[in-house]
């Protein structure tokens, strides 16, 4: 390779670098502008929890929709007895009624510890909707609701569950954040799939060849 060509290569590199920097700048400007434009977009039909932003005020929201070939009433009845949820929800150890309409949810946390939250039912419409909210002084501030509606074409019931929680501060907060932060979306998805399996087939699929010891 001649000296002359070497020099030309070097200037070509410099030119491409300049083009690259310029391009990156233009892209950044375009992105900023489109982000600004996005704030003024009319709302679409998608559920809020699928928005590109993940927070709503102080609350983190997660939710999942699934279709189950059972009637609204059957699924409602199963869910309304919160104790049943421990069968399908991986991290729920137990749900115990404390009386006075309050339930205590005991949640298994990493490292074998447990946390609990006490909730009260806010709204209860048989076959349609159940919503609950944590009572004052509860370790975790949370609210949730589950809605049941008829699916089209004899597919059963569309079950939509939404849980909002305020990630708390302090040590307990860190623990809880870890608990919920363990991909809450994945957790919700897996829990509802187990619910579907149990409601549709009467059992929860496992490839284990023997019963757990």
């Amino acid at each position: 390779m001649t000296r002359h060509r070497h020099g030309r290569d070097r200037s070509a590199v410099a030119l491409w670098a300049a083009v690259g920097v310029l391009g990156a700048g233009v892209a950044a400007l375009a992105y900023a502008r489109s982000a600004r434009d996005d704030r003024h977009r009319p709302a679409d039909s998608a559920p809020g929890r699928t928005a590109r932003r993940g927070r709503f005020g102080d609350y983190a929201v997660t939710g999942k929709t699934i279709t189950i070939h059972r009637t609204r009433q059957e699924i409602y009845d199963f869910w309304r007895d919160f104790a049943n949820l421990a069968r399908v929800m991986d991290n729920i150890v137990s749900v115990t009624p404390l009386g006075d309409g309050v339930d205590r949810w005991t949640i298994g946390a990493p490292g074998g510890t447990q946390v609990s939250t006490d909730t009260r039912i806010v709204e209860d419409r048989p076959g349609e909707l159940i919503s609950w909210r944590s009572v004052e002084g509860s370790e975790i501030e949370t609210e949730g609701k589950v809605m049941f509606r008829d699916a089209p074409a004899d597919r059963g019931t569309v079950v939509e569950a939404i849980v909002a929680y305020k990630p708390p501060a302090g040590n307990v907060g860190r623990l809880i954040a870890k608990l919920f932060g363990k991909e809450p979306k994945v957790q919700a998805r897996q829990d509802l799939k187990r619910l579907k399996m149990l409601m549709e087939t009467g059992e929860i699929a496992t490839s284990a060849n023997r019963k757990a010891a």
Partner: protein
Amino acid sequence: MRALTWQGKHDVRVETVPDPEIVNPRDAIIEVTSTAICGSDLHLYDKVIPGLLPGDILGHEFMGRVVEAGPGSTLKKGQRVVVPFTISCGACFHCRNAQFSACDNSNPVEKQEATETLYGHAISALFGYSHLAGGYPGGQAEYVRVPFSDVGPIVIPDGMDDEDVLFLSDILPTGWMAAENAAIAPGDIVAVWGCGPVGLFAIQSAFIMGASEVIAIDHYPRRLELARGLGAKVVDFRQTRVLEAVMEMTGGIGPDAVIDAVGMESHGFAPDTVLDNIKQQLLPGVDSIHALREAIIAVRKGGRVSIPGAYGGFADRFPMGAVMEKGLQIRTGQTHVPRYTRELLERIGEGEIDCRFLISHRLPLERAAEGYSGFKNHPDDWTKVVLKTGRS
């Protein structure tokens, strides 16, 4: 019990493992009498399908006697059954619509994550396959736990030998569905790439469905001979330019339907195959699709492309232009086995379909590893291996 376990690439061993037991109410335990090695087991043997763990029990073509039935099973102790390789709950949307291999509920929840990410939806469970498909212990064993045993297994009447009905578990319905997916009209010419077990059953099925002519493409003389024995015209790609031959043999029109019974480990010495195979060695999830490319280029305009061959990842240089510009229809999928077993059992009983012609080797389960290496390394002689347990 004794069972064939996967240990790593080209390493399978018969070992002693714990017996299975009833875990869920609809389970049954089957004592295996006959089981076979499938071409798709070779994808596991070659480690081109991910998600196997050392010690996993392979095998998804098996039959045997019911030795125990859970309270939710409809099977009775002592019944002889063939078990479909797909596991289906019978209750979800897909099972209710006879799309049994798309079952929502058979793949354990945690194991659904991988394919839900990869494909947008989780796949259903299969016996003795990748953990992506549930990781259920398979049928190359003395005993198998069969979940949802009230849905899949078909009871076999006394008087029918294992070897007549064993292939109802996979390759016969798979070949049948391949022909069904080719939407054959009476008089059609159908071309089939790959004369392995699925291709051979697709040839038989295509004739039953009214094909006037079937062109079978392969390079193993014995397999081509089996295809010829079923009435197919054969093309040996080692000695013949396939595309040109197929056009000439169809009056310059091209086949009305083509069937890719080869799948992701397509070989043969074509430049695109060499490139695909190099990529397959370097990257996970690259499928070799030489046969499929050729089939798509060969099929007539407005024709049908049926793909029973197994694929798992991504295909490079897929001829999308030909698909669109020629107006092709593509149908594929894991076999919806229980949709076909009853009808096919009848056709076997009436002597319309022959399964025995395929079997080249019968070995005791203890010699299963030999079966794998023979089937892999000498595909011309080893067309199909049936393994027998001590209970046969």
